[in-house]
C-alpha cells in the first residue's frame, strides 16, 4: 500500500512550494495533481513577480509580502525570473490624488519607487503613450510559472519529495476524527487507489472548496475568471502598470519574445471555466490601447483564461473587492484533525505561503527542522563544462534557453542524446528553439502523458506558429521512439492542436486567421487528421 506522511493536493505554485519545503525539512511527502502540473492558475496569469506596488495602497500587508518575496525569488529562482523592472504610469484620466497616496504607501512598506520624467520614460520605452503624466520605476520582474513549478519539483525530488500527476482525489478518508488517507482516481486509466497518510493539505487553489467538501467541510472559495492576451512581440522591455487603483487590463508583462496583457475579472461558473472569449479580448485591447496606442498593430498569439482562487470568510465579497491575502484553515476546528487548507494569496508570495503552511504541518507532526527555502536556489548551478559541451551540439543560441528550461540533470541527458546521434539536435519547434533531443527527453521523463505535457515543460508549440509545424514533428518523433503514451497517435495530433485552438479562437483575425488557415491546410487538408476519425479502410 502506498503511503506518505503528508499528502499535498494541488500541483500549482503553492502546492509545489509546500512539497519542496516539507521535503527539505525531511518529511515524507507526496503531491497529487488532478491533471498536469500547473494545470490551474499558476500558469494562467500574466507571470508578474510583483514589486508590491499594485497592492501598496489597498492592502499594505500584501504589498510588503510581495516586495520581500520578490527579493527572495530573484535569488533562488534566477532561471525563472527575468529582472525587467517595471513602470507605474499615470495617464491624464487617472486620479492624480491617488498618485500621492501610492508614493506614500510604497515608501511606508519599503518598495523603491523612483520617479522619472515622462521624457526619460519614452526614451526607455518608445512605444509608451506620450500622454503619460508621471512615471515611476519599481522592481517588478517577469516570472515563468511553468518553469518555476517544475524547478520546485526538481528541487523537492532531490530531497525525496514525490509527485503524481493526473491523479484526482475523490475521497478523504477519516477514522476517529483524524485523516487516515485519501482515495485517488487516475484521470487517464480511471483506476482507484487508497493512499495512507497522517496529514492532508489542500493547496488546490480554485478547487479548494471542492476538496474541502470531500470531507464535508465548507470552504468559501469563489473562483474569479481572468482572461489575458499573449502578443508575439516584446511591446515594452519593462512591465508597465497603470498608476491607479487596480483594475482590469492594465498590466503588460514582457516574457522572452512575447508580452502578456491582463487581466479581466468576472465571476467564474466553476474552477475550470477557462475558455477565453472574444468580448474579453476586445475589452482588454480597449484598455490596453490607452497605454500603447498602436496596440492593435501587434500580432496576437492567443488568449487564455484562468480563475483566481479568491477566498473570503465573508461569502459576499467578490472580484477585486476580495482580499488577496492568504489564509491557513485548520480543519481541526471543523472537527477533522490532520487536514488543513491554504487559500487565497498570489503567485508572488507562493514561497511564503508554503513556508507558513509547512510550519503549521511541522508543528503538528512535531518536526523541528527550520525552513530553508528562502536560501537554497531552486536549481543547482549548471557547470560551465556542461554548458560548453551543450553549445557544441545545440543549434544557434538554444543551448542557453534549454539550460534554463531543463536544469542541469535533464540538460546532461539531452546533451548525451545529441552526442550519440547528431540528428537529435534538429529543431522540432523553430519558434521556441526546442530540439528533438529535448522533446524525446521530456516525453520519456515519466510525467508526460500527451504532447501538451511536453509543451508545458519545453515551450514547444508556444511560439508564433502555435503548433503548425511542430505538431507533426513531435508526434512523429514520439512515435519513432516507440512511445505514444498508450494513445492512438491521431489523438495526440488532435489533443495538441485542439489545446492551441482554444486560445486562437477568440482572436481569429489578421495574421492569426492566416496562420490557422495554414495549420488547417496541413492537418486537415493534407494529412487528413479529421478524416482519420473513422480510420476509413480502403
Amino acid at each position, binding site marked *: 500500500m502506498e503511503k506518505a506522511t503528508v499528502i499535498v493536493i494541488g500541483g500549482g505554485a503553492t502546492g509545489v512550494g509546500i512539497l519542496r519545503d516539507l521535503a527539505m525539512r525531511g518529511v515524507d511527502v507526496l503531491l497529487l495533481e488532478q491533471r498536469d502540473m500547473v494545470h490551474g492558475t499558476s500558469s494562467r496569469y500574466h507571470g508578474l513577480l510583483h514589486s508590491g506596488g499594485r497592492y501598496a495602497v489597498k492592502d499594505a500587508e500584501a504589498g510588503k509580502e510581495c516586495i520581500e518575496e520578490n527579493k527572495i525569488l530573484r535569488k533562488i529562482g534566477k532561471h525563472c525570473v527575468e529582472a525587467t523592472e517595471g513602470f507605474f504610469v499615470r495617464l491624464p484620466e487617472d486620479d492624480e490624488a491617488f498618485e500621492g497616496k501610492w508614493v506614500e504607501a510604497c515608501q511606508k512598506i519599503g518598495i523603491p519607487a523612483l520617479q522619472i520624467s515622462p521624457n526619460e520614460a519614452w526614451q526607455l520605452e518608445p512605444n509608451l503613450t506620450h500622454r503619460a503624466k508621471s512615471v515611476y520605476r519599481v522592481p517588478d520582474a517577469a516570472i515563468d510559472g511553468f518553469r518555476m513549478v517544475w524547478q520546485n519539483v526538481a528541487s523537492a525530488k532531490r530531497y525525496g519529495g514525490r509527485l503524481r500527476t493526473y491523479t484526482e482525489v475523490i475521497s478523504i478518508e477519516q477514522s476517529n476524527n483524524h485523516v487516515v488517507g485519501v482515495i485517488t482516481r487516475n484521470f487517464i486509466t480511471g483506476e482507484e487507489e487508497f493512499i495512507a497518510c497522517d496529514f492532508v493539505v489542500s493547496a488546490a487553489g480554485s478547487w479548494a472548496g471542492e476538496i474541502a467538501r470531500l470531507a464535508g467541510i465548507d470552504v468559501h472559495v469563489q473562483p474569479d475568471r481572468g482572461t489575458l492576451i499573449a502578443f508575439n512581440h516584446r511591446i515594452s522591455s519593462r512591465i508597465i502598470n497603470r498608476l491607479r487603483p487596480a483594475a482590469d487590463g492594465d498590466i503588460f508583462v514582457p516574457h522572452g519574445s512575447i508580452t502578456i496583457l491582463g487581466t479581466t475579472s468576472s465571476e467564474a461558473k466553476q474552477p475550470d471555466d477557462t475558455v477565453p472569449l472574444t468580448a474579453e479580448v476586445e475589452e482588454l485591447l480597449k484598455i490596453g490601447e490607452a497605454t500603447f496606442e498602436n496596440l492593435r498593430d501587434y500580432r496576437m498569439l492567443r488568449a487564455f483564461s484562468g480563475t483566481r482562487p479568491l477566498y473570503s470568510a465573508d461569502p459576499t465579497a467578490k472580484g477585486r473587492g476580495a482580499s488577496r491575502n492568504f489564509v491557513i484553515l485548520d480543519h481541526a476546528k471543523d472537527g477533522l484533525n490532520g487536514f488543513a487548507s491554504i487559500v487565497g494569496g498570489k503567485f508572488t508570495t507562493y514561497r511564503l505561503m508554503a513556508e507558513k503552511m509547512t510550519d503549521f504541518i511541522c508543528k503538528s507532526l512535531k518536526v523541528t527542522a527550520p525552513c530553508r527555502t528562502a536560501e537554497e536556489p531552486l536549481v543547482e548551478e549548471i557547470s560551465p563544462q556542461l554548458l560548453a559541451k551543450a553549445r557544441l551540439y545545440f543549434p544557434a543560441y538554444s543551448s542557453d534557453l534549454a539550460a534554463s528550461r531543463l536544469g542541469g540533470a535533464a540538460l546532461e541527458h539531452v546533451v548525451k542524446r545529441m552526442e550519440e546521434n547528431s540528428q537529435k539536435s534538429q529543431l522540432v519547434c523553430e519558434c521556441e528553439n526546442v530540439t528533438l533531443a529535448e522533446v524525446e527527453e521530456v516525453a520519456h521523463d515519466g510525467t508526460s502523458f500527451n504532447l501538451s505535457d511536453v509543451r508545458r515543460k519545453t515551450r514547444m508549440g508556444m511560439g508564433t506558429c502555435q503548433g503548425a509545424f511542430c505538431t507533426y514533428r513531435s508526434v512523429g518523433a514520439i512515435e519513432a521512439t*516507440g512511445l505514444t503514451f498508450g494513445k492512438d497517435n491521431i489523438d495526440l*495530433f488532435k489533443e495538441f492542436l485542439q489545446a492551441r*485552438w482554444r486560445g486562437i479562437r477568440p482572436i*481569429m483575425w489578421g495574421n492569426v*486567421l492566416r496562420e490557422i488557415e*495554414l495549420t488547417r491546410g496541413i492537418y*486537415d487538408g493534407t494529412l*487528413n487528421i479529421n478524416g482519420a476519425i473513422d*480510420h476509413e479502410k480502403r
Partner: protein
Amino acid sequence: MRKDDVIVIGGGLSGLIAAAASAKRGKKVTLLSFGMGTMTIGSGIIDILGYDNNAAIVSNPESGVKMVDEDHPYHKIGLQAVKNSVEFFLNLCREEMYPYIGNLNEMKWIPTAAGTLKPTCLVPKTIDPDQLKVSDQIYIVGFHGLKDYYAELVVKNLKVSLGMDRKYEIVMIDHNFSGGRDVTVLDIARWLDSEDGRAKCIQQLKNKIKPDSVVLMPPILGTTPDYLVLDELAKATGCQLIETMTVPPSLSGLRLRSMLINCLKKLGVRMIEKANVIKSILEEGKCIAVVTDGIDRERTYYAQNFILATGGIYGGGLISSALGEIKEPIFNIPIQVSVAQENWSNLKLFSNKKQPFAKIGVDVDNKMRPLDMQGEVLIENVFVVGRNLQGYDFCFEKSGNGVALASGYQAAMSV
C-alpha cells in the same frame, strides 16, 4: 499603352489556370503575381470533393460535386464546366509531358506522411495509389536526418488504414549531406535531380527492397515537372513508387507550378512578378485598369477583363483586420460575415462540421462575376476565382485545388 484582353491578378493555381485557359482561347493575357501563391504549400494534387457537409465520404468526386449546397462554387460553375475543366487540365498536363492521372468517377485514396489516407481526384504519376490496394509488401523509405518525415508514424497508421495483413518494412537511406543544417525534402529532391544522387539512392534501394513491391517515399522525386526520377527509380527497383504528402514545402506543388509557368511562357502570356495590385480604376460599372505599387513607382495596367485570383485570407486576397471584418482590397467587393464568435468558428478544430470562417468569401454568379449584397452583378468585367470565393471549406471537404481549377477555367470561358 498596352491593353490586354485579360489581366489575371494572382499566380496561384486558379490564376495560372485562368491565364492558360484564356490564352488558349486566343486572348492576349497579362499575369500579375506577387509571391508564389500557395502551390508550394499545398500538395499539387487536385482534390475535387471527398466529404459531404456532415463529414461522410462521398462515393466519387462527381457525385460529390452534384450534391453541394447552392452557395458552393461548384453549384454555380455547374457539373459540365467542372468536367470540362478537369478535361482541360488533364490535356494540358499531357501536352506539357507531365501527365496527371485520375477522373471524376473515381476517388483516389492517397497515403500521407501521417500514415492516414486522403481522398483526392487528380494526381501526378508519382502519387498513383492503385498498387497500394493490392500489394502485400509495402516498404516505407525514410532518409536519415530528413526533417518532416517519420517512417514509423507512417507505418503505425497505415496498419490501421490499410490493414494489418500486409507486410510493412522501413528502409532508411543515407545521403551525403553534412554540415549540421536540417535536411528538408527539397534537399533530397535536388540530390535526386543529380545523376550521382540517383545512382547512390538506387544502389541502396536495390540492396534493401524486393522487386514487385510498393515503395512509399517522402515527396522527393525531383524538382522539375517530369517523371525522370520516378521512372529511373521504378525501373531500377522494379517497384511502384508512391510519394506521401507531408508538411510544406511541397515538391509536387512546385513541379505543377513550374509546369504551368512553362506552359504560360509558350502561350505568350506576359508575366509580371512582384506586382502588388493595390487598387482598381472603374468607369461606369466596368473596370478599366488596375494599379500596382512596384519598388519604384505605381504602374497602371489596362484590359478588357480582369480575373481576380488573389487568394483567400491565407494568400492575402482577403484581409481581416478585426473580428467579423473581412475586406477584398482591390475592388472593394462587399463580403458578408457574422461577428459573433460562435458563428465564426466551431468550438472544436476538428469535428464533423465545416468551419464557418472558412466559407467566407466573395459571392459570384455562374460566370464568376462578383455580386453585391442585393445579388446584382457588381462589376461586369471582373471575374473572381479560387480561394477568394465563398461557400466552401476546402480543408474539411477536400476540394483544395479543385475549386481553383474549375473556377479559373470557368472565368476564362466567361471573358
